[in-house]
């Protein structure tokens, strides 16, 4: 069985290809919109294919010989609905019967309400247009799958991290630069998802006999707070936890804060101010105020999802990559 993986150049697509190729399969066709995106995939002797993701015929040609597609591409918000339509129609045209669509738990918002689960009603009133586009794309995915008779599985991934992720790069850089901030002492729920646990979810979705036409929330096994997430990273990077600074959430207007003035910050240490000004995005402020651990019961029951990498191990691997990316190879050697 050959599987097509779109988005070969992205963090998730590249890791899925690496994990499948170095692991127990399946055989792959790596698909991207441009040859320049094959940097990671081209390290292997695998089938590399270029396609126009907004052109049914072009994308269908790239699916030739594949029995399933893992869609790990995220188009620009304006193109997302159309790209989803093209994906499904190209799959149907190429004779592909199953699509695993990598969605995001962000369709429930960056701060999902307590009680959120897969059946919770989605809306398109998010302040961030990207989230609205993701909701529309996921709806379009299921509509097209129904009309075309495709087995569609949407995986709503939690807060993704891992080697080569922006999440790790920005956190590591912030920790090492003395610019890491936690909201409300980091009590919020992270809903983390190590990329290899997502790969495990993709594997079971590719083989599942039930659950087609459904969305599945996917996170790590542990309910990790942002405090735990940051402190685990700090430990791996040999950064003093005391350098992590704290922000009083009560002073933040919802969805508004992007840059924190020094005056609103509460430092836990009496040290000189970091050399660069602190920064916490509105996106991260919202995430850190999440009070709900998203359930993975449906993925566990219907797909047989079993996250095998604990957060501590995921962070160890992620930080090992970060040190490598910073050129620490020679020091290690």
């Amino acid at each position, binding site marked *: 069985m050959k599987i097509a993986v779109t988005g070969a150049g992205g963090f998730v697509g590249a890791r899925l290809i690496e994990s499948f190729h170095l692991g127990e399969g399946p055989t792959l066709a790596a698909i991207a919109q441009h040859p320049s995106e094959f940097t990671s995939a081209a390290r292997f002797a695998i089938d590399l294919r270029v396609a*126009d993701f907004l052109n049914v015929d072009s994308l269908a040609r790239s699916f030739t010989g594949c029995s399933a597609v893992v869609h790990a591409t995220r188009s620009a918000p304006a193109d997302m609905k159309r790209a989803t339509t093209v994906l499904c129609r190209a799959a149907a045209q190429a004779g592909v019967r199953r699509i695993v669509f990598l969605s995001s738990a962000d369709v429930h918002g960056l701060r999902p309400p307590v009680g959120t689960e897969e059946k919770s009603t989605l809306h398109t009133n998010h302040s961030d247009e990207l989230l609205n586009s993701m909701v529309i794309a996921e709806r379009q995915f299921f509509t097209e799958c129904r009309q075309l008779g495709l087995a569609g599985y949407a995986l709503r991934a939690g807060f993704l991290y891992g080697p080569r992720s922006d999440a790790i790069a920005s956190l590591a850089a912030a920790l090492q630069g003395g610019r890491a901030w936690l909201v409300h002492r980091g009590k919020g729920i992270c809903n983390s998802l190590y990329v290899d646990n997502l790969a495990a979810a993709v594997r079971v979705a590719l083989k599942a006999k039930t659950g087609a036409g459904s969305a599945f929330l996917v996170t790590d096994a542990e309910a990790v707070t942002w405090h735990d997430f940051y402190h685990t990273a700090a430990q791996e990077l040999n950064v003093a936890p005391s350098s992590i600074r704290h922000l009083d959430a009560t002073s933040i207007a919802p969805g508004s804060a992007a840059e924190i003035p020094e005056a609103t910050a509460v430092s836990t240490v009496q040290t000189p101010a970091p050399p660069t000004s602190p920064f916490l995005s509105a996106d991260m402020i919202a995430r850190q105020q999440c009070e709900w651990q998203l359930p993975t019961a449906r993925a566990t029951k219907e797909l047989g999802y079993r996250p095998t990498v604990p957060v501590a191990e995921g962070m160890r691997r992620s930080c090992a990559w970060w040190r490598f990316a910073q050129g620490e190879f020679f020091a290690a050697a």
Partner: protein
Amino acid sequence: MASSTHHFSRTGRGTGEAQSAKEETAPPPSRRRGKAAKAEVSATERISGAAEIILVGCGPVAHQMHMPALQVLQNAGRIKVRAVVDPAEGWREWGRRNFPTALSAASIDGVVAPPDTLAIITTPARFHAAQCNAALKRGWHVLCNTPLAATAREAAQMITAAQQHERVLAVALPHRFFPAARYLRTLCHDHLLGPPISFGIHDGTTRAAPEGGPPGPEKFESPDGVLNELGVRVFDLLTWWLGSASVKHYADDAMGGVEANAFIELTFPENVRGTVHLSRDWPTTQSYTFVFERGIVRWDATSPSRLTLQIASAPSALQGELVTPLSPRHSSVNEPLLATHDQAAVAELENILAAFVRREPLRVPATEAMHSLHLIEECYARRTPLPQPWLPQNEAVQARAFSPPMALRRS
């Protein structure tokens, strides 16, 4: 190369840069033989005004590396892009957007152009030899992107062919025109901060899909590895600055394909040692740090002229842009400082045009490309798999199994 210029500075025969500049030039083919020179002058006289250019390869490299300079020179009436050549129609048309009057062809065979046309070859390295030879047979001069060829052997054959056809063969190394690169060369050669001791280089950028460009061609050639993409430029600069190198250690992450990351440890004459970290999947600092006996210099390679300098035990380092010397009497060169990559590309192209139109010396002849090609081949010959401690154990085992010696992968 470096040992001879060290000799010059020690014996007081030259003032470094000027002397070095003489050394790095090579007479154009037309200067080498009397009759041939006359024939070439006749051919040159046929060029009415603008020199004609054939752009072979219209992908992202051509757009980033050459098209801005070509547009500047075409707008100035110095050149005329006669044809754009690419087997992918979408990329060919993308090239024509910049040069609407240019003819469009899928291969060199579809282009008719007079001798003394300049072919600029920006295709993947494995096509360079065949395309270069096709151009030379038509009497065209050639500017070839780096690496000059897929192997040193092919490159040597191309150089011989250019000599036989008495055409200019140049290699695109605009970084040699950067003020910071020339400054570092002067420091290395003339020991203005004492002799060089060690260096550390991080050079990495991610490949980006070209903005405004068409989707990639469905039939495409696999990308080159990071050594051929970035390493060739780094190695060229290092051998230009420090002389011939030996590979002490080389590791990369190719696992049956081509490498995205590489770590290299090199040694140079006079016991200069250093490390190079290249990455195509994650952006690095792009910094070149040199330790000399009496100071440290760091070049931020994203800028052609930005340096940080720490002199001996001075209490602070100094950071800034290179500017015109305060006193011409104390400078060894008299040429404008180039502030951007595009300006360097224009200067490089002007030098090549001058080499075959006015028979001026070529500043970076193709023979200069041999140093980096030999070094790349030495790296691959000494290849070791790069440890990737973030992989699960079963994948790490498989990764090592997929990592045969490079010599096997290239065959």
